[in-house]
C-alpha cells in the first residue's frame, strides 16, 4: 500500500535529481540547458509545495487542530525556497556561475533539512491522522489541478 509519506518522500528525491541536473549543466557552462533544467526543477518544487499547502496541510490542520504547529514553519520555509529558486534562475540569466552555486547550495541545505523534518516528523503525523484516506488523497494529488 502506498502511504502519503512514501509518495511525498519519493517526490523529494525526484526534486533532488532535477536540481542535480541543473547544477551539473551550470558547471558545464551549458547555459541554455541549465535554464531549461532549472525551470523544470522550479516547476517540480512548486508542484510539491502546492500539494502540501493546498491539500495536505489544510486537511491535517482541520483534522488535528494543529494550526500553529509544524505546518506554519514548513510554509515559511517554502517561501524561502521559492526565493532561492528564483535567485538561481536569475543567476542563469545573468550567466553568473558563482552566484548560482551560492544560491543553489543554500537552497540544497535548506531543502534537505526541511525534507528531513517532514519525513521524520510531519509526514508520519499526517499518515497517522489522514492515513485511512491515503488512496483518496493520492488520487487528488495525482489529478491535474
Amino acid at each position, binding site marked *: 500500500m502506498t502511504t502519503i509519506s512514501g509518495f511525498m518522500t519519493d517526490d523529494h528525491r525526484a526534486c533532488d535529481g532535477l536540481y542535480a541536473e541543473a*547544477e*551539473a549543466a551550470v*558547471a558545464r557552462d551549458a547555459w541554455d540547458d541549465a535554464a531549461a533544467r532549472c525551470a523544470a526543477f522550479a516547476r517540480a518544487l512548486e508542484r510539491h509545495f502546492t500539494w502540501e499547502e493546498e491539500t495536505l496541510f489544510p486537511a491535517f490542520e482541520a483534522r488535528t487542530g494543529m494550526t500553529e504547529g509544524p505546518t506554519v514553519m514548513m510554509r515559511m520555509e517554502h517561501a524561502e525556497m521559492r526565493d*532561492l529558486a528564483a*535567485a538561481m534562475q536569475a543567476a542563469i540569466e545573468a550567466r553568473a556561475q558563482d552566484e548560482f552555486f*551560492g544560491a543553489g547550495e*543554500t537552497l540544497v541545505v535548506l531543502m534537505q533539512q526541511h*525534507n*528531513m523534518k517532514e519525513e521524520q516528523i510531519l509526514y508520519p503525523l499526517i499518515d497517522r491522522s489522514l492515513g485511512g484516506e491515503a488512496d483518496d488523497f493520492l488520487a487528488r494529488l495525482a489529478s491535474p489541478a
Partner: protein
Amino acid sequence: MPIRFFLTAPFFLFATALVVGFRGEELYASRFSPAALAATHLVTLGFMAMTMLGAMSQILPVLAGVPLPRPRLVAALVHAPMTVGTAALASGFLWSAPLLLKAGAVLLGFAFGVFLTAVAIGLARAPTRAATGAGLALAAISLAVTVALGLDLGAMRGWGLPLSNLAARDLHPAWGLLGWTGLLVAVVGFHVVPMFQMTPAYPPAMQRWLAPAVFALLAAWSVVRWRDPSHDMSVWLSGVLAAVWLVFALTTLALQAKRRRTRADATLLLWRLGMASAAVALACWVASALGVGDGLEVAVGILALVGFAVSVIAGMLHKIVPFLAWFHLRAALPAGRRVPHMGLLLPDAPQRRFARVQFAAVLLLLAAASAPAWIAPFAAAALGLAAALLAWNLVTALRAFRRAQQA
C-alpha cells in the same frame, strides 16, 4: 549558540600545532609521552569534543525530533569549563603539573556531566525510537564510558591513585574514537551524505545495525582486555571491530562516487580525505594489535585524529556555519530585504584553500614520524596554517553576517 564552540575549536588545533612544533621529537617517541598526551587531548577535547558538543544542539532536534533541554544554560555550563579544563589538562601533561591535571579533570568531568545529563533528558523525550535515536544514545553512552575511563586515568596521574586496570589506557581512546566519535559521525553521516551530496542511501541494514554491532563489539573487546589483555580473543575482536568500521568508510567512499551532484566542493574533498584516513588508521590499528610493524600507534593517532576527525568535522563546519548565518539573517531581516546566500557569506576559494592545506598537514604529520627532528617543524607549520585558515573562514562568514545585519 553553538558558534562559540565552533570558534573556540580552531584555537586548540593551533595549540596542537605548537606542541608538534616545539616538542616534536618527544611527541613522536611514544604515544604516552607528555607531548603526545597533550597534543591528543588538545585535538580530542579542544577540537573534536568542542565542535561535537556544540553541534549536538542542532543534531538532536533534526535527527531525533527533540530539543536539547535549556540549550542556553547547557551551552554556558559546558563551554567555559571545557575550554579552561582542556587548556589546564594539556598544560598539566606538557609540564607534568599534577595540580593542573587535577583542575582539568574536575572541570572536564563537570562539563561532560552537564552535557550528558542534558542529552539523556532530551533523548528520553524523543517521540520515536528510531534507529537514529538509538545510535545517538549509544554514541552518548560511549562518551560516558570514555569520560569515566579518562577520570580513572586522571586519578592516577593527578592524584597518584593506583590505576584500576592497565587496560584503561587502551580502552579510553578506543571508546572515544571507535565509540563516541565514530558513532556520531556515522549516525550523522547516514543522513548528511545522501542529503547534501545526493548519493544513494546507505544500506538499511547498515543504518540499523552498525551502531548496536559496534557497541556490542566494543563492550565484548573491553571485557576481554580488562580480564586478560593477552587473550587471543582480544585481537580477534579488534579485527572484527576494525572490519565493521572499514566497511562503513569504504561504503561512504563508494556512495560518494555515485553522487548525483557532480561538483566536488571542499566539504566533499574533506570527507574523502577523512574516510581514506580512517581506513588506513584501522588497518594500522589491527596491524599494531597483531604485533606487526613497530611504532604504528603514533600513525594511528595522526590518521584517526587529524586525518579523519579534524577533516570530517572541518568539512561540516564549512557548511554549518554559513548556513546558520544565512538562516539567522533570514529570520532577523525584514521581509523583502535581500539576504546574502551562503556563497556570499563564505566563498568557495578559501574553503578549498583550507582543504589543500589540511591535506598537506596530514601528509607532513605522517612523514614526520620518519624524521621528527627535521620534518615535525614543517608539519607543525602546515597544521598551524590549517587551523588559522579554518578560523579565518569561520570569522569571514560571521563578519559577513554582522555586515548584513547592520546594513
